């Protein structure tokens, strides 16, 4: 086995199941599309691996890529519902600022994910992943920091900046009341 193939094989066996599950959960359980995302993520990762600085682990990079590509697909298939969750991030607050319905309420979480898909257009992979984990999936800033190999302060800064941008974007996107 060639060295590149051997490394691909090792990373795939170790991380592809997690990438697939991440994509599947964001894509509403669509396994076929999640498989496509998994494949695209791994091929994309190996194309850019030489440019990576090594600051983040392979898991972190792959997880963010899976999140980004899944949300991008959601965005492409989305139809504007006219309903946006209010976004606010309190830097001093330990838990999620936006309390979504319980984790069992899958429909509400899908709705929130769709909202975030629209609001995160143009954001980088790390910011998008932070926003999704925090606003749609209820992670604390510490849990996001642990997941993405960054400091809690970095997460808070990214969320605060994102919330400010998203608020302006939401104002533009929210449909006016029919008169």
């Amino acid at each position, binding site marked *: 086995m060639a060295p590149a193939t051997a490394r691909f094989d090792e990373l795939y066996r170790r991380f*592809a199941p997690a990438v697939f599950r991440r994509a599947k959960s964001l894509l509403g359980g669509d396994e076929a599309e999640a498989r496509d995302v998994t494949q695209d993520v791994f091929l994309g990762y190996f194309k850019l691996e030489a440019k990576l600085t090594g600051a983040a682990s392979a898991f972190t990079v792959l997880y963010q890529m899976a999140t980004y590509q899944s949300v991008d697909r959601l965005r492409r298939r989305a139809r504007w519902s006219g309903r946006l969750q209010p976004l606010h991030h309190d830097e001093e607050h330990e838990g999620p600022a936006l309390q979504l319905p319980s984790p069992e309420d899958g429909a509400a979480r899908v709705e929130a994910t769709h909202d975030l898909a629209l609001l995160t257009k143009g954001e980088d992979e790390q910011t998008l992943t932070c926003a999704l984990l925090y606003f749609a999936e209820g992670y604390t800033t510490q849990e996001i920091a642990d997941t993405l190999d960054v400091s809690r302060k970095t997460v808070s800064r990214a969320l605060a900046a994102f919330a400010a941008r998203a608020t302006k974007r939401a104002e533009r996107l929210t449909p006016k009341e029919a008169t």
Partner: protein
Amino acid sequence: MSDQRPIPQALLERYAAGDLSGEALERVERALASSPAEKARLDELRADSAAFLVQQPPGPVAAKLEAPARPRWMFWVPLVALAAGLLVFIAAPPVEEPDSSVKGAVGLTAFRQRADGTVETLTRGQLVRPGDAVRFQVTAPGPGFVAVLSRDGARKATTYHPFNGPRAVAFDPKQPLLETAIALDDVKGRETVWLVFGQQAFELAPLMKQLEEGREPSAAGLSVASLEWMKE
């Protein structure tokens, strides 16, 4: 995370992949140690990962990495050839020196992928169809050398792994799923498949002769497991 709060899915994934360290690792391990429910989540995640890798092995994706300009359908051309009884050899397992002793039994499991993409574990005597893709998983007591041999309904003997190879190839128990995939040909009837395992490398010609004579493969120092299916 507090004791009451479930381990976030992403952190559990990272833990399952062996990628957590430091305080985050300690927090997850504390939560797992104190909660059977969290431990069950982890077990379920690992089982799901194993199933995923059976259904979506790295070989086809790696092939695209090696030949990015090749059109997508080109990868499947060899599978057309397999309908005539040939075999795709994706990659050989890494070579590793065998242990000095063998304890425990050997086992062979076959997974069938149907045309619609679904995967199932084959049970002894199960009906299969020409064109079904099959992969093998080996259970062995340690590193060694393996071969997968077959005798089909026309009593023809074939070496499935390594395909048409003259001798057994190295086996790493950490990678029990063999990289070789076969597509079943159109020879109908009962087909028996044998896994042959040994601590030392061994030649396959004497074993193939036994199969052609209607006997089972057997030699000193070798362990054998078998399965069979009916092709209709």
